[in-house]
């Protein structure tokens, strides 16, 4: 019963929050609602016994991602009302409603799933984090390491793109201009 109540409560909340995210005109509201929605989602994770995931959700999303977005928002100065010209709303609403209905129709039907065998079964009495750790560092070691590479890539990308070196474009300058710029700056910016 508790589970049901919690499910419906949080389901309502997440849907509401995310609805606000996609509809509000206030970017700040959107950001806040998104953060709230993320937290509510972590609630599901806890309900479902995925404690580690829930924690990660809060830390990564609400902590890191949202902070990044917040910084971004300040940078882009989108705290004011967001003006968005809308084209044909019918397409948007129609398409998404259709998509939702279709998938819901399918999922409303029972799933057979007979031969499902848990490859990495959840063991009773062992903490979720521990289990996750074991699987992550055996089976999913490679993706884990690759994820590290990916984060490195993202980091480099972020640095490169947001860095000062991008302010001057060598692509658009002809060789004389480049020489000129080199003299002025005399930095490794223009290696």
């Amino acid at each position, binding site marked *: 019963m508790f589970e049901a109540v919690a499910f419906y409560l949080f389901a309502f909340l997440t849907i509401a929050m995310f609805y606000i995210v996609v509809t509000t005109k206030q970017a700040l509201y959107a950001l806040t609602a998104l953060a709230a929605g993320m937290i509510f989602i972590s609630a599901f994770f806890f309900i479902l016994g995925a404690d580690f995931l829930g924690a990660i959700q809060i830390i990564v999303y609400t902590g890191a991602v949202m902070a990044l977005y917040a910084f971004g928002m300040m940078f882009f100065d989108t705290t004011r009302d967001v003006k968005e010209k809308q*084209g044909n709303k019918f*397409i*948007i609403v129609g*398409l*998404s409603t*259709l*998509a939702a209905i*279709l*998938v819901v*129709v*399918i999922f409303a*039907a029972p799933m057979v799933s007979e031969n499902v065998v848990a490859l990495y079964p959840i063991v009773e009495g062992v903490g979720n984090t521990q289990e996750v750790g074991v699987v992550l560092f055996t089976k999913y070691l490679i993706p884990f390491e690759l994820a590290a590479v990916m984060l490195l890539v993202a980091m480099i990308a972020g640095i490169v793109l947001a860095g000062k070196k991008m302010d001057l474009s060598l692509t658009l300058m002809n060789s004389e201009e480049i020489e000129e710029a080199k003299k002025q700056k005399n930095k490794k910016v223009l290696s």
Partner: protein
Amino acid sequence: MEKFLYIALFAPLVSSLFAALFTTTKKKTFVGIIASLLIFTAFASSSVLLAHILNNGAPIHVEMMTWMATGDLYIPFGFVVDQVSVTMMMVVTLVSTIVHIYSIGYMDHDKSFNRFFAWLSAFVFSMMILVMSDNYAGLFIGWEGVGLCSWGLIGFWFHKESATWAANEAFIMNRIADLGMLIGIFLVYWNTGTLQYDGAFEAFKTLDTATLTWIGIFLFIGAMGKSAQFPLHTWLADAMEGPTPVSALIHAATMVTAGVYLVIRSNELYDLIPHVGLFIASLGAFVALFAASMALVNRDMKRIIAYSTLSQLGYMFAAAGLGAYWVALFHLMAHAFFKALLFLGAGNVMHAMHDELDPFKMGGLKKVMKGTFIMMTLASVALAGIFPLAGFFSKDAILEAAFVEHHYIIYSVLLFTAGLTAFYSFRLVALIFHGEERYKLFGIHPHEAYKFMLVAMSPLLILAIIAGAMKGTYYEMVISVLPETEYHIHSHLVYWVMTIGTQLFVIGAVVYAYKKYADWKSVPDGSSDVEQSFMYKLLYNQYYIPYAYEEYIVKPYREISEIFWTKVDMKVVDATVDGIAGIIYGTGEKTRDMQSGNLSTMLKWMVAGTVALLSLAVVFGLAARNSDEIVAILSALGVM
């Protein structure tokens, strides 16, 4: 003897090539002389061959080399000199020699003198091939060759629009007939397996009548074109645009008789299909009358003679169609002599009159052109068939044949035509040579032709007079090849009545013509009652047949061609191709807006694509899940 055969055959070719070397240079008289000599050589060789044939009668048959050989088809260049072909060879070479010599004078002032001889000799060569070939394909070579040379010679004065038009008309009309000929040849080949005369004739005997009939008809269609039989006759009158020697040689003596020759040559075929023969005879008789009627009123000297030729060809076909091949051939020969003479005489007149052709503008020329006057008069007498000139013997034989074969309609048509022939021939003579000197009105100073031209014509004159005497010898000779059909009217009385009656009829026509035209005074201007009458107009306009051809065949052809090009080819066929390309391109052009460059649109496309897939998935999934029910419903509805 083969040597002579080759000489007769190739001397004209040598002559032609020799003359052709000088086509682009100035006039050189020696070209004409050498050409004439070479043609004379051919004539001499032909004479030797004739003598040979007359002596022992063994035909000479040679096979020079293979022409085409593929599959079962084998066509050699084979030549045969037998009684029929040697007769033709004699006619051809003789008339050619004379015409060549004559032309040296006639073409004296023409800057394309050399070219003329090249063409003329080439024509002789083609004609020799035509008559000497021992198979249908070889005959076809000559057949087309003479057509080509005829084209070149009719259009000899190619700066004249009318001449080139006439040349093309002649060529194309002949081509129509040649198609028939070609089909005939195909039929012969596929039914007999060979195109050699002897082999094919042998095989004809085993074929059924239907096939033979078709063969006969198609070959005759070929003959119709070359011999200008109705309805392919219009080109012959127009062909008079060519130089007069050409008319004499090609359009009177030789080429136009090729059709007759073909029928005679294929006598073994036509003997097997008398009904086709009858058709040929009927058509011949019709053409004889038809052409003669047009000659009655025409005001163009050469055209009158051309219609007369046409008419005489009709006689020949009538004879050949009735199985009297030797008679046809005999008339062919005799006709060649006097008609060539007539034409050459007309050439003299033309020269004298500075190319004036309307006899009404002449008159009284006998004073200045005595020689020509005599020759033309005698030729006309021969043409009219008055005893004892050549025409009498040949034409009379045709009438007899028609009578004996009980084709009285043909007989009476031919008889009537004989009268017409006499009338128009002497109408011409009378208008040209008698009466007042109307040409003075036009400031023309006529003069007689060169002497040597008249001398050159003289053999023809002699032959026109005496050819009848050769009938017996000739008959003896050709019956070894042609069917032996002697036409004897059983009752002597009937024979004499007929002969004398005919003669009287003809002479009456001559007298009438003289009476009417001998002292003609003025040049008609189209206002007289006669000229206003319907019949006159009908005849003068050649029964409106050229008009009809122009109006209902040539023009529509041109217009349809134009439509085919501008409408069908450009607007339908090509436009379809371009249209398909255009549709592809246009679709690209129209739908490229899908790439609006706006990210939002792009995302919508992605979602839309997914949703579309999803809908299909759901439809399919539901259908799969409920397939039993669906089948049940469908079967209940009677769909499945």
